[in-house]
C-alpha cells in the first residue's frame, strides 16, 4: 500500500510543478522521473514526496533547484567517442558546404557536449561559420555551461575520449587547469548562445543544419518524444542531420516520412521531405 501512496504523491507533485511554476513533467518517463523525485526528497531532506510538494508550494525550496535536479544532470566530454567520429566523418563535410551553419544542441546540461563539439568544429575549420544554440530546461545547468568550469577528476578519460573521437590536437590546448578544476577557453563559446528551452512546451526558434539531442529522449514517454521529434523536424533544413544518444533510436516511432537512418553509430538521422506529410 505504501507503493500506491507514493504514486498519488508523485502525481500531486507533478501537478504542483505545473500549476505553481508552469513546468509540465507529466510527459516524462516514469521510472527515471520517480527516481529523481526520490532523489529530491533525499536532497531536501523530506520524509516523503508530499512534504516536498508542500515546501515547493510554499516557496521554501527554489524551483530552479528542483528543475535542475529533475533534468539531465550528467554529461561527459566526448561521451561515446565513436558518435563524434561519425559526426566528423558523415556530417562535417556536408556542413562545410554551407556559408553559415546553425547547430542546435537540445538538452545541453552543463555544457560538456557543446564544448566537445566546439573543439571538433574548430579543428575542422568550421567553427567560424557556426552559430551553436545550446538549450536546456534548467537555468542552473545553463549558468554552469556558460561558465565552462569543470572538476578535473575525469580529465584523463576526457583526453582519451577526445583522441578517440578524432581530436587532432591536445585537449589541454583548450583549457586552463587550476585548483582541481579546468576552465574551457572563452574562445570556444564565442559562437555559442546558451538559452532556456523546454522541449515539452516551447517551439521552433531556428533553422538548423544539425540538431543534437543526446540522452534526453530516454527521459520522455513516447508522446513527448514525438513532440520533440516533430520540433526537430520543423527546425531542420532539408537534408539536415539529427543525432541522438548512442542507445537511443527512432525505430519505435512512425518516422519514415520524417527521418531516414544514416548511421547506427551515433545514431545519425537525416531529415527527409520538404513539407510535413
Amino acid at each position, binding site marked *: 500500500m505504501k*507503493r500506491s501512496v507514493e504514486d498519488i504523491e508523485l502525481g500531486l507533485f507533478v501537478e504542483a510543478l505545473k500549476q505553481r511554476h508552469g513546468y509540465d513533467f507529466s510527459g516524462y*518517463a*516514469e*521510472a*527515471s522521473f*520517480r*527516481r*529523481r523525485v526520490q532523489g529530491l526528497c533525499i536532497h531536501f531532506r523530506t520524509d516523503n514526496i508530499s512534504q516536498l510538494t508542500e515546501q515547493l508550494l510554499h516557496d521554501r525550496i527554489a524551483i530552479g533547484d528542483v528543475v535542475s535536479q529533475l533534468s*539531465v*544532470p*550528467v*554529461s561527459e566530454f566526448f*561521451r*561515446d567517442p565513436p558518435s563524434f567520429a561519425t559526426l566528423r566523418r558523415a556530417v562535417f563535410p556536408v556542413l562545410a558546404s554551407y556559408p553559415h551553419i546553425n547547430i542546435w544542441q537540445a538538452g545541453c546540461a552543463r555544457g560538456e557536449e557543446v564544448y566537445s563539439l566546439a573543439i571538433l568544429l574548430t579543428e575542422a575549420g568550421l567553427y567560424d561559420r557556426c552559430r551553436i544554440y545550446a538549450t536546456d530546461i534548467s537555468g542552473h545547468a545553463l549558468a554552469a555551461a556558460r561558465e565552462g568550469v569543470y572538476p578535473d577528476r575525469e580529465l584523463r578519460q576526457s583526453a582519451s575520449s577526445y583522441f578517440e573521437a578524432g581530436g587532432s590536437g591536445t585537449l589541454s590546448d583548450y583549457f586552463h587547469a587550476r585548483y582541481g578544476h579546468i576552465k574551457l577557453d572563452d574562445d570556444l563559446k564565442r559562437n555559442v548562445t546558451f538559452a532556456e528551452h523546454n522541449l515539452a512546451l516551447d517551439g521552433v526558434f531556428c533553422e538548423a543544419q544539425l540538431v543534437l539531442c543526446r*540522452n534526453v529522449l*530516454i*527521459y520522455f514517454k*513516447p508522446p513527448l518524444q514525438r513532440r520533440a521529434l516533430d520540433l526537430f523536424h520543423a527546425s531542420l533544413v532539408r537534408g539536415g542531420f539529427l543525432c541522438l*544518444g548512442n*542507445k*537511443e*533510436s527512432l525505430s*519505435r516511432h512512425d518516422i519514415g516520412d520524417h527521418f531516414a537512418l544514416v548511421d547506427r553509430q551515433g545514431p545519425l538521422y537525416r531529415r527527409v521531405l520538404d513539407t510535413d506529410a
Partner: protein
Amino acid sequence: MREGASLVVVGASAGGVLALRSLLSGLRADLAASLVIVLHIRESGVDSLIGLLNQSSRIPVREALHGAPIETGVAYVAPGNYHLLIEREGCFALSVDDKVCHARPSIDVLFASAADAWRGPLVGVVLTGSNEDGARGLAEIRARGGRAWVQSPAEAEAPQMPEAAVRVAGADAVLPLADIARNINQAFPP
C-alpha cells in the same frame, strides 16, 4: 507484460563474467522468468559478454534496449555507461544519471527500480564483486517481499559485494552458483 510474470535481477562486478557464464549455463531452457543482469564492465565489453554468455546459456541473452518489453525466458544485459531501470508496463528504461557506487550501470539502481515497478514474483541475486553496489537495492527488494539469493563469499572471486549484501540486506539464502541456478529453476518452472 503478462500479469504476475516473474523477474530475477542479477548484479555482479569483479569476477562476474565467469560467474554469470556459470550461472546461466545452469538455467533450464524453458525457464518461466525473465533475467536482467547488471555487470560492472567496460562499455566496450558488453557485446562480447553477450556473445560469450550465449555460447553456454540455454536461454537467449540479449542487450536490454530502451523501451523494449521484458520477455519471459530471456536474459538481458544492461548496456554500458547507462543505468537500467524497469517500467511498470514491463519494459526497460535507460538513464544517464550520476554513477552510484562509482558505477553506471549500477546494481542498486536496477534493483530499486525493480522493487518499485515489478508486480509479479521478484528475486534479487548478488554475485562476486569488490564494491558494495547492490546491497541497498537488495534490501529494497526484500522490503517489497521479494527474495534475495547471494553467492557464497567463500566461492566468489571477490567476496566484498556478497558480504555487503548480506550485511546490509540479509538474504534468504547464501549459496554457491550451482545452487542459485537450481533455486531459480525450481522457483520458475514452465
